[in-house]
């Protein structure tokens, strides 16, 4: 090993992008970062950002940071999607499209990994951070510092994956990187290592968040909030976080084993040397299937909040809804094999997993029926969140049917690995997860900003997303039936697939326009913030978050609420029975930069592990551990807010200005 390798590992000038499109991505990313840095510097906001945001332990601010990062990652994943559509629409017959096969594979691997880990997960943790503490009537999460660390680890993972735009390449092995393709023999570059460490670091953040929110929901509920008075979004969060805690360790171990294979010459999953790639496929899906439910459950929770509020009616079948969440939680762990019925398992095994998969449709169906019967005899206001809900029911039901079809193993033999499958899971994740979180963001936006999220642009966004989705994925279902497999960078003209791919491309453009409308929605909302100012309860809400000012004070509740009923705030508005406890002194966490610092060290560790810069690996690991220990011994981490101070502050806030029933 020469000194260059010692210092720079595998880094050299040749790792810079090799073609115009890759350069475009790299330059665009660097330009964006420089633009943001310049803007922050010239507007003199560094101090404000550092003090109010980066070091904040307030879950409301952490939530907004999660959503901001997820939004930026949505742009990255979305541009990837447009490139994929452009390639498949043009690369037919004699034409080989706009990117090389290798680059195409990097793009779809990045698209999947980023959309799941850094968009869907980010939106989910963002909403959970914003809403759960308020819903359960507490001032903070159980471990405020851990929460900040989770966010910064999530950010470090996202940053690491995006480094691959400029330095080196990304994995070409798909979003789950099946070996032996992802092993050193077939993927000798750093691409798979970026994938491993981006996910590993982001996943660690998710695991810590899972622990944190379980502890929060179990231990920090307001007095009187028994389990069967828990708001639905909190219930689904608890289900989802339970899955996180059980599933993510599997991912951690699997990724670690794959990295050992690649770096230390081990043979867990290699072809040859005693490795077994089928073990990897089992392990990754034992995490991967619960992951889908991790994402979808909180989205179900959002709909369970929105439908009653906008139907002016309480949720139908609360008990059924709770039961169905837990049925889904349990079942989601015994269906993983349906991702590889075609691997040659015995008929008994395939049949068992097929049946279990179909069984999940029952609790999911029950949820849909209960939402519909919440609308029954209601008084429905078709605001944007309700539109997202309607779009969700239509698409999700159809996508669910496709899922039940593929749960029959022999049907899956024909549909597996085809674009039908791709269309199916996009239907579930876009209409379920994404529409759900869009609905939730619109619904809770006024709570955290004090003005509504613009309706006009919201509607435009919805219709573009809906039509775009149908045009983009309808053709993929058909192409799958025609025998088109997924991940093709090129196909023969004789197959006659090009028109459908072209329509799918148009659909993707409409979705992109829908996203532009959402950006416009944000801008319009900020411009009209004075005209659209709202009080604490703009939607005639039912749960505790609507009882505090918009935006809520850092401490959420001046006096902790006392809960008498399931929809506590609704009950309060009807009965006017006072629901606050006596104001008391309380502790609040001080801001801390330790989370950001630890995550920076972990990022250095990950970067070193990707590029084999071993001094950086050691430096990063030591730095992270030392900072964590230092933080542990910091006894000055809290400050006291006195009751009199609160009474004084609250006098300045006009609460419950316009409570309407």
């Amino acid at each position, binding site marked *: 090993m020469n000194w260059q390798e010692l210092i720079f590992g595998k880094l050299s000038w040749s790792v810079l992008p090799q073609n115009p499109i890759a350069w475009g991505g790299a330059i665009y990313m660097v330009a964006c970062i420089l633009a943001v840095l310049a803007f922050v510097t010239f507007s003199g906001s560094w101090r404000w950002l550092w003090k109010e945001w980066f070091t904040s332990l307030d879950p409301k601010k952490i939530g907004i940071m999660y959503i901001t990062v997820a939004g930026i990652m949505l742009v990255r994943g979305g541009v990837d999607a447009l490139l994929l559509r452009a390639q498949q629409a043009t690369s037919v017959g004699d034409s080989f499209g706009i990117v090389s096969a290798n680059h195409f594979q990097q793009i779809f691997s990045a698209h999947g990994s980023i959309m799941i880990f850094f968009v869907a997960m980010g939106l989910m943790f963002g909403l959970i951070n914003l809403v759960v503490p308020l819903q359960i009537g507490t001032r903070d999460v159980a471990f405020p510092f851990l929460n900040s660390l989770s966010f910064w680890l999530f950010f470090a993972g996202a940053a690491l994956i995006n480094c691959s735009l400029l330095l080196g390449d990304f994995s070409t092995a798909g979003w789950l990187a099946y070996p032996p393709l992802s092993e050193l023999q077939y993927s000798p570059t750093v691409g798979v290592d970026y994938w491993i460490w981006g996910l590993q670091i982001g996943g660690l953040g998710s695991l810590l968040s899972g622990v944190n929110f379980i502890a929060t929901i179990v231990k920090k509920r307001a007095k009187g909030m028994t389990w069967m008075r828990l708001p639905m979004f909190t219930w689904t969060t608890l289900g989802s976080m339970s899955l996180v805690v059980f599933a993510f360790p599997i991912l951690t171990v699997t990724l670690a084993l794959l990295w050992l294979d690649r770096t230390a010459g081990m043979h867990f999953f290699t072809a040859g040397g005693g490795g077994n790639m089928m073990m990897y496929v089992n392990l990754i899906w034992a995490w991967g299937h619960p992951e889908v439910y991790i994402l979808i459950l909180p989205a179900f929770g959002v709909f369970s909040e929105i439908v009653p509020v906008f139907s002016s009616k309480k949720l139908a079948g609360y008990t059924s809804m709770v039961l169905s969440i837990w049925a889904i939680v349990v079942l989601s762990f015994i269906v993983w094999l349906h991702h590889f019925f*075609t691997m040659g398992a015995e008929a008994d095994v395939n049949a068992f997993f097929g049946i279990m998969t179909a069984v999940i449709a029952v609790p999911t169906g029950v949820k849909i029926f209960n939402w519909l019967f919440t609308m029954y005899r209601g008084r429905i206001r078709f605001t944007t969140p309700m539109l997202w809900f309607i779009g969700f029911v239509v698409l999700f039901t159809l996508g669910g049917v496709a899922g039940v079809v593929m749960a029959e193993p022999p049907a899956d033999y024909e549909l597996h690995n085809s674009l039908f499958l791709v269309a199916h899971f996009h239907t579930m994740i876009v209409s379920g997860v994404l529409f759900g979180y869009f609905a939730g963001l619109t619904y809770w936006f006024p709570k955290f900003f004090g003005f509504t999220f613009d309706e006009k642009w919201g509607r435009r966004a919805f219709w573009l997303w809906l039509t775009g989705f149908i045009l983009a994925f309808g053709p993929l279902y*058909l192409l799958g039936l025609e025998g088109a497999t997924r991940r093709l960078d090129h196909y023969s003209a004789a197959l006659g697939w090009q028109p459908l791919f072209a329509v799918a491309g148009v659909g993707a453009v409409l979705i992109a326009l829908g996203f532009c409308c959402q950006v416009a929605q944000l801008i319009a909302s900020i411009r009209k913030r004075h005209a659209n100012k709202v009080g604490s309860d703009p939607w005639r809400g039912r749960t505790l978050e609507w009882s505090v000012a918009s935006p809520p004070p850092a401490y959420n509740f001046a006096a902790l609420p006392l809960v008498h009923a399931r929809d506590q705030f609704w009950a309060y508005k009807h009965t006017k029975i006072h629901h606050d406890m006596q104001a008391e002194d309380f502790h609040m966490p001080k801001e801390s930069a330790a989370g950001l610092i630890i995550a920076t060290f972990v990022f250095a560790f990950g970067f070193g592990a990707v590029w084999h810069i071993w001094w950086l690996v050691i430096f990063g690991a030591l730095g992270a551990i030392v900072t964590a220990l230092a933080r542990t011994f910091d006894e000055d981490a809290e400050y006291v807010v006195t009751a009199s101070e609160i009474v004084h502050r609250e006098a300045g806030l006009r609460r419950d200005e316009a409570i309407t029933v």
Partner: protein
Amino acid sequence: MSRFSVFLLCAGVALLVVATVIYAQHANIAILDPAGPVALAERNIIFTTLLLCALVVVPVFVMLFAFSWRYREGGHAALHEHHSEWDHYNWVAEVVWWVVPAIIIFILGIIAWQSSHALDPYKPLQANTPSMTIDVVALDWKWLFIYPEQGIASVNLVEFPVGTPVHFYLTADAPMNSFWIPQLGGQIMAMPGMTTQLNLMASRTGDFNGFSGNISGDGFSGMAFTARAVPQTQFDQWVTAAKTGLAPLTESSYASLAQPTEYNPVSYYWPVSVDLFGSVENKYMTPGSGMMMDPASTADGMQGMNMTP
């Protein structure tokens, strides 16, 4: 909703319907146009499942749109029938929507159990003609078909007699692939170091498209191949023709064939060394680990290992 939006919505739906009808008349939808008993049975399962699902989906759609319209704010029903607490007396409804989907899923479960066994890809097909064996090796990035009974091999073209059950044994000397001929039946993975099996039969002659379903690297898209079902006499002629050019497939010529190539043209080999398939498979077994297979018994020797995670 403005009148213009309603118009737009109706126009959109109408356009979608027209486009679908035109598409259905012109497209060649492989999975819905089966050319063999396996693909036919699998297509029928898709149809049956769709029909059973419709029993739930149709009511959901009807209720969604009916309730949305009837109980919209400002409508007559929303004013007169609104009941903010309606829920508790309806345990009957609650039972209905747990039980009805459960019954449908129970029926689907029975279908899943029976069809998984009936259509087990490893299960040989019954027919009047005796079955034939074809060994398949997924390479970077092409398919090698070895005919042990005929002593020939071909690349990216697999030909067999119509009406004859074909028993495929599959392995890979490359990353994981998935062997799929949509019009003949479902796919199965081809993996290095192990053998999977697939039984298919063509009930009519023709050229059918075959694909690899699982990403395997740069040349993955070029792993399309042709599956050709022909009358027995024509198949015999094809075998004879394959034997005209002397291109032996030995360990060494195999090694050069196994080098990565993209969009490989169809080519033929003859004679083929007898234990080539076994040696490809054994290449990934650790010597001395007790996992070495006797090449002669590869035919079904690996069955027991296939799902041992």
